[in-house]
C-alpha cells in the first residue's frame, strides 16, 4: 500500500491519496494520469490491466486500486 501511494505521489503530487475516495469522479486524476499509472502498476506488480478494468470504481481510491491489483495478480 505504501508503495502504491508513492507511485501516485510520483505521478500527480498534491493529493491526499490515503483518504481520497473520488480520485476519478472528483477530477483529481486525468485520463493521461491513469495511463501513466496503469503502465507503472503493470511494471511494479507484474500484472496486465485490461481496458475493461479501467473504470472509476477501480481507481477512485488507493484501496480500490490495491483490491484490483490483488485480484489481477491471482488470475
Amino acid at each position, binding site marked *: 500500500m505504501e508503495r502504491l501511494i508513492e507511485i501516485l505521489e510520483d505521478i500527480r503530487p498534491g493529493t491526499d491519496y490515503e483518504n481520497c475516495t473520488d480520485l476519478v469522479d472528483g*477530477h483529481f486524476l486525468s485520463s493521461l494520469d491513469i495511463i501513466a499509472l*496503469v503502465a507503472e502498476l503493470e511494471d511494479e506488480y507484474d500484472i496486465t490491466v485490461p481496458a475493461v478494468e479501467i473504470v472509476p470504481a477501480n481507481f477512485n481510491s488507493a484501496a480500490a486500486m490495491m483490491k484490483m491489483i490483488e485480484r489481477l495478480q491471482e488470475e
Partner: protein
Amino acid sequence: MDPTFLLAGCGKDMTSFFSMTFLFLFFPACLLVYSIVPKSWKKYFLLFASYLFYWFVSGTLVVYLILSTLSVFLLGIWIDRIQMQMKEHIKELPKEERKIAKQKFIHRQQRVVFLGVLLHIGFLLVVKYSGFFVGNINLLLSLSKSTVVLDIPQFAMPIGISFFTLQAVSYIIDVYHGLVKCDRSFFRLALFMSFFPQIVEGPICRYSQTAEQLWQAGPIKYNDLTLGLQRMLYGMMKKIVIADRLNPLVTGIFDKSNSYGGVIILLGAVCYTIQLYMDFSGVMDAVAGIGQIFGLTMPENFERPFFSRSISEFWKRWHISLGAWFRDYIFYPVTSTKRMKQLTSSARKKLGNHFGPLVAGGIALFCVWFCNGLWHGAAWSFIFFGMYHFTLILLESMTAPAAAAFNARLHINTDGKPYRFMQIIRTTILVVIGELFFRANGFMAGLSLFRRIFTSLSINELSLQTFHKLGIDGHDILIVGITVIIVFIVSLINEKGISIRETLAKKNIVVRWGVLYALIFYIIIFGAYGFGYLPVDPMYAQF
C-alpha cells in the same frame, strides 16, 4: 374526430418534448394508462408507449429500430453461448492449460463483437456519412481532372440513430467483457434501446444504468411526480424562454454573416453557445424529469460545464454520456493495446512520467476527437471542431508542468478565487470560439467569421437598430438576460454543493406550489412560441 387525423402528421408532429402534442396529449395519456394498468403490465406499456412515440417521430423508419434491437439481442446470446462453452471446456483442464485454451474462445467472441460493431457502426456510417464521403471523392475526382461524378446517395435517417447505435454497441461490448449478463428477455432489451424520453437526444445510457430500472417499472410516487415536473419545467424554461428567443438572432447572424462585423459575430458566437447549452441541457432536464416521474434515475448529461477550469474538465461536464462512451470504448481500449502499452513504457523511460504517457494518450485522444467531431455531423467543420478540442486538450497537458513551475515561481495561489475565475473565463472563451466553427455554415465560412472578429471590430455596430434588424427588441434582451441570470444563480448554488431541489422539498406546500406556478407562468408569458415565432426543433436531434 377523424382518427386518421392523429396519424396524419406522423414524423413531424412530436419531435420535441415541449410540443403541445407531447405535453398535453401523449404524455398525460401515457401517465394515465401507466398508473391504471396492473404492475406486471407497466413495463410492457412503457415499451408500447416508446414505440408509439418513435412511430410518431419517425414513421416507418421504426423498422430499423426493431432490426437493430433484434440483432443486438441475438449477438448478445451468441457471445453468451461461446462464454458458456468456454467455461464448460476449461472446467476439465488443469490450471496451467486453461489460459491457452481460453484464447480460442476469446477470439471467437471477438469475431462476434467485431461483426456487431461493424453492423451497427457500418449502418450509421452509410446513412449518415455516405453523402459526405462521396462528396469528397467527387471533389478529389474533379481535382484530378476526371469527368466521373458519383451520385450522392440519399438516405432517410431514423431519428436518434446516432444515440441508440452507441447504446447498442456498448451493450455488445459490455456483454463480451462480462460487465453485464446477456439479456434473454427481448422486451427488456427493446425497452432499454427505445425508452421514449431518451431516444431522440440521449443521454446515451449503458445497459447497466437503465435496463433493469426500466424493467422494474413500479407505480408513480407523488414526490417523484412533483419533483420530476419541477425539473421538466426548469428545462422548458431554459429552452423556450432563452434558447428559442435567441434563435432569430443567432440564425440571422450566421446566415448573413457577411453583412456583420466583428462585434456582432462575437455576439453571435456567445449567443449560440448560450442557445446550444440551454437547448440541449434543457431537453436533458426534461428527460431526467420524465424519468423521475416514472421513478427512474437517468444518467446526468451536464454538470454545470461553464464552471470548468480547463477544456478537458469542460468535456467531463458537457454531454457527459458521450464523453464517457468515447473514453470507455475508444480511449482506454486504444491505450490498452499491447503496442500502445509498450510505447508508453518506453516513452516514460525517455520522457519521464509526465510526457511519457502523452505519446500513446495523444494518439488515443486523436481517435476520440476525430470520432467526436464526425459524430456531430458529416462535414469538415465538425471534424475541425474535434481537432480544435483535441489540440487544446493536448496543449493543456503538455504545458501543465511549465505552468505549474511558472505559478510556483511567481507565488500565484492556484487555488485562490482570482486564479480560478481567470481559468473559467479562459475556458469559456475557448469554448465559444469552438462553437463559432461548430455553428458556421461550413469550415471556410467559420474561418472567415473568425478572421472578421479581428479585422472588422467596431463597437458602433452594437446598437438597438442592429438588434431590430435581427428580430430582437429591448424586451427580448431584457428577458433573456434575466433568465440567464436565474439559471446562473441556480447553477452557482448547486456548484457550491447545495441542492436547491432538496431544500425546496422540505418547504411547505404553498412555497412548493408557488415555485411550480411561477415556473409555469414564466414560461407561458415569456416563452418564445406562438404568434410571431417559428418553432425550433431540439438542436441535438439533428446530430
